[in-house]
């Protein structure tokens, strides 16, 4: 029997004591992610193939319209692999963001009935998307073999950093929006629209090189740095812009910290107003 003493007091100031608590609840994190994965493809005919089908189908449509018909430039690489590299990271970001934003509202019954670190819910949804990302990345490997690309050694080193930046950026935004969503359900309606706009402000379907003097606007978005660096290191389309990558790393870390701070500040009201 534990001798730990727990004191419950009114929460008036910002407290981060449960960030360490999150570690003791790491198995819950795992189970929540596992639940989402397991439930997602229940009662579907093709199951996990959906994780492959979505980016693949999007890639084909974009290749047809933007690559073949509109002749969007692609920095000298074949358009399909160019757009797929962008989509891979973009879909990881956008799907994580939209699922994390609904993580609290979607789990209302457990939020109001059981105590656990609330951070676990948005974090576990992003972890789920990481699995989808891994599945979709296999397709990229296949395409690289097909088009005969060998990644630079630098690419293999940079790749985990790119995943981490995407993870931080989507989780940071997701935490903020999840907390806002508890009080203002507008998030649910505004977000899909917002994500779509944001995609056009990220060089997913076009190269950043065509933006010229507006490039700085795009560079504020950490996903620009991620997608640029992915293409540079995996496809060798351009030299790796390490300054831009560092900037993306800083911005995404700042987003994550801001997201956690905001989330923690409003967390105590969740069970009362959700």
């Amino acid at each position, binding site marked *: *029997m534990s001798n730990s003493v727990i004191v*419950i007091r009114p929460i008036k100031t910002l407290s981060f004591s449960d960030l360490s608590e999150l570690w003791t609840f790491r198995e819950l994190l795992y189970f929540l992610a596992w639940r989402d994965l397991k439930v997602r493809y229940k009662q579907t005919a093709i199951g996990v193939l959906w994780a492959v089908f979505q980016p693949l189908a999007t890639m084909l449509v974009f290749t047809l319209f933007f690559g073949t018909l509109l002749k969007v430039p692609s920095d000298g690489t074949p358009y399909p692999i160019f757009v797929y590299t962008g989509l891979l990271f973009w879909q990881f970001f956008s799907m994580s963001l939209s699922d994390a934003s609904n993580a609290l509202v979607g789990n209302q019954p457990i939020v109001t009935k059981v105590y656990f670190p609330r951070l676990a819910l948005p974090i576990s949804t992003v972890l789920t998307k990481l699995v989808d990302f891994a599945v979709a990345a296999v397709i990229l490997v296949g395409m690289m073999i097909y088009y005969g690309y060998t990644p630079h050694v630098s690419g293999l080193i940079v790749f985990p950093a790119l995943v981490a930046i995407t993870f931080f950026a989507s989780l940071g935004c997701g935490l903020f929006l999840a907390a806002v969503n508890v009080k203002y359900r507008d998030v649910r309606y505004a977000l899909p629209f917002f994500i779509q706009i944001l995609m056009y402000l990220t060089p997913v379907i076009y190269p950043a090189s065509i933006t010229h003097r507006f490039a700085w606007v795009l560079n504020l978005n950490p996903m620009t740095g991620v997608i640029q660096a992915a293409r540079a290191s995996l496809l060798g389309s351009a030299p790796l812009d390490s300054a831009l990558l560092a900037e993306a790393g800083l911005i995404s870390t700042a987003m994550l910290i801001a997201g956690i701070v905001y989330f923690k500040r409003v967390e105590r009201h969740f069970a009362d107003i959700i």
Partner: protein
Amino acid sequence: MTSPIIEVNGIGKRYTLAHQKGGGYLTLRDILAGAIRKPFELIGRGNQRAGRFETKEEFWALRGVDISINRGDVVGIIGANGAGKSTLLKILTGITPPTEGEIILGGRVASLLEVGTGFHPELSGRDNIFLNGAILGMARREIARKFDEIVEFAGVSRFLDTPVKYYSSGMYVRLAFSVAAHLEPDILLVDEVLAVGDVEFQKKCLGKMEEVTRTGGRTILFVSHNMGAIQELCTRCVMLESGTVVKQGTPAEVIDYYMSRLKREVKELILEEDSSLAIQIVKMRLEDEQGRLLSDIDMGNDAVLKMDYVTRHPIPSLSLSLEISKDGVPLLYSLSSDADEAALSRTAQIGRYCTSVTLPTSLLKEGSYRIDIGAGDAAGELKVARGDGATLIFSVINTRSDLTQKSYRRERKGLLYKHLVWENKGAQ
């Protein structure tokens, strides 16, 4: 061993009730619209006050609650709906923080606020055991170790790989309770779980809880409306009313106090007519054999229940049901169609009816009892309209103090009052 494991000092929880013109969720649009209508209010008093809100009202769900609980105590918490029982448990688990006061807990807390929390309908029973266990705070290894025990207790081994959405509600509840019952916290909070499941399983749960406290020295806080269960399980009892503790003590004392508070002052119950109901009980009263209105019945006497009901649509095969219960345990159940089977082939016409039935209250010993009347269509499943107010509470009282009544005092065992003939022939 006697140092308190839970110390609740002056806990208060305030909610702010916003009376909205519309209802529904507050959206940014409302705040913006409010800002346009009353721009200075937004700047001056903070954005939450603008918008759709008309008035704000503060409401203390709990105020100045002091409770001290020792290790190994099983404490029942009773009180009418809205007395603050669930809020207290929510604060104890940490789901919501208190507005004032502090609580010192000497161990790990786990709650059974509602069984099946976090069950996912699409997942199999096996998966849900792990998921639910993790949500309740069990480690994976712990769940794996107790897995067989959990399955066996719930009695669902044949359906382990079936998604729980196909489970019967009884199986669902059994599995959910079973997971929670195998938690090993120092302090266990239980809220109303026993209201569900069949009687047999309820008994099993109560037994499990008892076993847990006896062997594990665990402290349990048990919120329930089932006075029988509180009486049977708890070593102490706390009664809340409008957010404060009004009575603490042994379960028998507190339950008595609670029942006396519940007892209606009016001797005749007249219900407000609601024209949307097809059938409604509108008046209930108890009379003695001479036709005098009663609220308390002298032990050993029968009473006559008279009631008026209104039917607003023709109802085929109308039947009334009557249930007498004590502390949530039904003692007697009867249908009007039992005596008049012809009623089942008749259609009750629109109108006002008066019915009377003699209750065998002479069989009941001292205590508080409750009568619930239901009405419905007996041909199909009888839809007993319980909970719509057709409930009368009465007490059987003992006004005599001669020795012959001694065995039937309230605190003694037994439910019935009946003098038995003891023949004593002396030593042979």
